[in-house]
């Protein structure tokens, strides 16, 4: 059991009360303190855009009206300051243990919206990121799920990361994904999984690649929007 919160390092109170002990339920040790949990803002049970899942008072948000396609994404959390800070540590600093913070919730979330015939496909990271970071931040969040690696991210070494580009540049980009050789996805219904939906360009690129290669339907789920 961890003694301190994974995010703020303050002491964790893992004391069990008598009613819990007598209930004979399994102990799920706390990883994160109450203060840190409440700093994230959930999108579940909130009014969101029916297309991208963004917090939105209107049915279809301005971004999606601009896209004007049939893309559907579901998200769990808002991508706000607390989330940005989390990804700074998890993804960019490379603290792989932090995957546990959202892992269980995210896996539950995916299982809930997953349709029976759907195939889960995570967005891959490119090779140079994989060698320096050592992990894919998306699959880290999905431990315990059945997923298939069918895409290759072929962003070349000297080209920019997505977060280094402006919105316009991202939207004008051609797909940086290709299908892994030997994968047959014709007729499949696919659920793409990514960590963050910002402009939606990455997910749409992956969707284009998948549809070109014979997938019938592609929608996506992300941890935050």
């Amino acid at each position, binding site marked *: 059991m961890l003694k301190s919160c994974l995010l703020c390092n303050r002491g964790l109170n893992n004391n069990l009360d008598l009613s819990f002990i007598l209930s004979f339920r399994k102990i799920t040790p706390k990883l994160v303190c109450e203060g840190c949990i409440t700093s994230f803002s959930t999108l579940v049970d909130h009014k969101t855009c029916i297309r991208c899942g963004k917090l939105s008072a209107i049915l279809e948000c301005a971004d999606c009206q601009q896209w004007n396609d049939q893309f559907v994404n579901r998200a769990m959390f808002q991508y706000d300051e607390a989330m940005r800070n989390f990804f700074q*540590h998890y993804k960019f*600093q*490379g*603290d*792989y*243990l932090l995957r546990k913070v959202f892992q269980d919730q995210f896996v539950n979330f995916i299982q809930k919206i997953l349709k029976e015939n759907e195939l889960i496909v995570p967005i891959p990271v490119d090779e140079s990121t994989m*060698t*320096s970071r*050592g*992990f*894919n931040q998306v699959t880290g969040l999905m431990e315990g799920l059945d997923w298939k690696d069918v895409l290759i991210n072929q962003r070349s070494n000297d080209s920019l990361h997505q977060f280094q580009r402006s919105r316009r540049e991202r939207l004008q980009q051609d797909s940086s994904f290709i299908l892994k050789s030997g994968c047959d996805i014709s007729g499949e219904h696919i659920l793409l999984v990514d960590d963050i939906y910002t402009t939606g360009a990455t997910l749409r690129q992956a969707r284009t690649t998948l549809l070109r290669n014979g997938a019938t339907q592609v929608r996506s789920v992300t941890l935050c929007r």
Partner: protein
Amino acid sequence: MEEIEKQKYYGRLVLQPINAVPTDSLDCRPAIVMKGNQIHCQRCGAITSSRDGALPDHQFYCRKCINLGRVSTLVQLATIPEPNNFVANQSYLEWPGKLTAPQARCSKAIINSIDQQQNRLLWAVTGAGKTEMLFPGINHALQKQKRICVASPRIDVVLELFPRFQEAFPQAKIALLHGRSPAPYEYTQFVLCTTHQLLRFYHAFDVLIIDEVDSFPYAMNPELHYATKQARKLQGSTIYLTATPDGKLLQQSRQAKLATSYLTRRFHGHPLPEIKVVSGQNWIKKLRKGRLPSPLSRFIKEQIQAQRQFLIFVPKIEVLPKVLEALQQVFPTVKVLTVHAADPERVAKVQMMRKQEIDALITITILERGVTFPGIDVAVLGADDAVFSMAALVQIAGRVGRSPQRPKGTVLFICPMLNRNIKRAQAQIKFMNRKASEC
């Protein structure tokens, strides 16, 4: 490799991909050594469980020092031994001030330790003028082409020291390193940094001076202790500066394993104010009812009559608003504010106190060191709480009587019961006062 390129590696630990092309000039070694299920970090010395620091494909990383850039089995540590290619100069020191006789004695002892490559503890009471005492020693080391570092666990202390050193050594280039500085690393003979930054050095310094060794986070952090060992050359001297040595340092000093210099008198020559403890039963309950504990209201009444500023320390943030509320109810004329570590207006509020725009501050342990308000008195509510270490209590008492105009003052501890930390803090102040009267 070009000289300018090499300078980045002199006495440093630079992270490189494990598959980088090897060059002759670089010494490379693995960043992580695995021993069974343990991850042994070669930068910070931490031993962690492989379960917490696992990456996919049997790779591992160290979580302890991750804020300085991740050390993992995917990288290696590259360094070049410190060459000490520095220019000998006549003298760097341009400080017009003069040391008092006891200060001069201590500063001579520091120079001796530097020459003999020995460690030394400089035990100087709060308000003794430690920084000035270092100037001759630093100057001596710079002239002898030694590489030197002054490190402190606290970033505020480092930021406060920098202009003072720069003024005293205008000819020397000083690198200022801390977690919030955006400037890239530059190779200099004189380094001023937080103790965390020492993790990035390897056998770099001949002289390593650590200020406020007893303070958080250095005191309880084995990685930082490891860092100070690694950052200094095998032959060299480490000088510890503190007002409140504790634990191992105190033990070594008592067993005469660590040479110790005492500076028992404040610069104005008066003894330290001693701690007065009064029992304050149920102070939490009283606060909850909106009342002040009676010793505290007596203390405040005295302050109002004498028109003096004062500080009230409390153990927890949650107590701050309650004390404020009760105080304002009983003494509506007193201008008082609360301040804590995460307070965005922290600096401004301390400034207001300095300018005497307000009468009092209610605070937690952040104001225990480094801040000087002349002529104040101090009260500590719940001094027996675990957050007040012996060192913190001595430091709190040390806020009082700093000005030559009013070298005495009241240090009032209000607590239900005495504990070891309070007793030891009292004993330490008495010990220093006795030692001061002996010499």
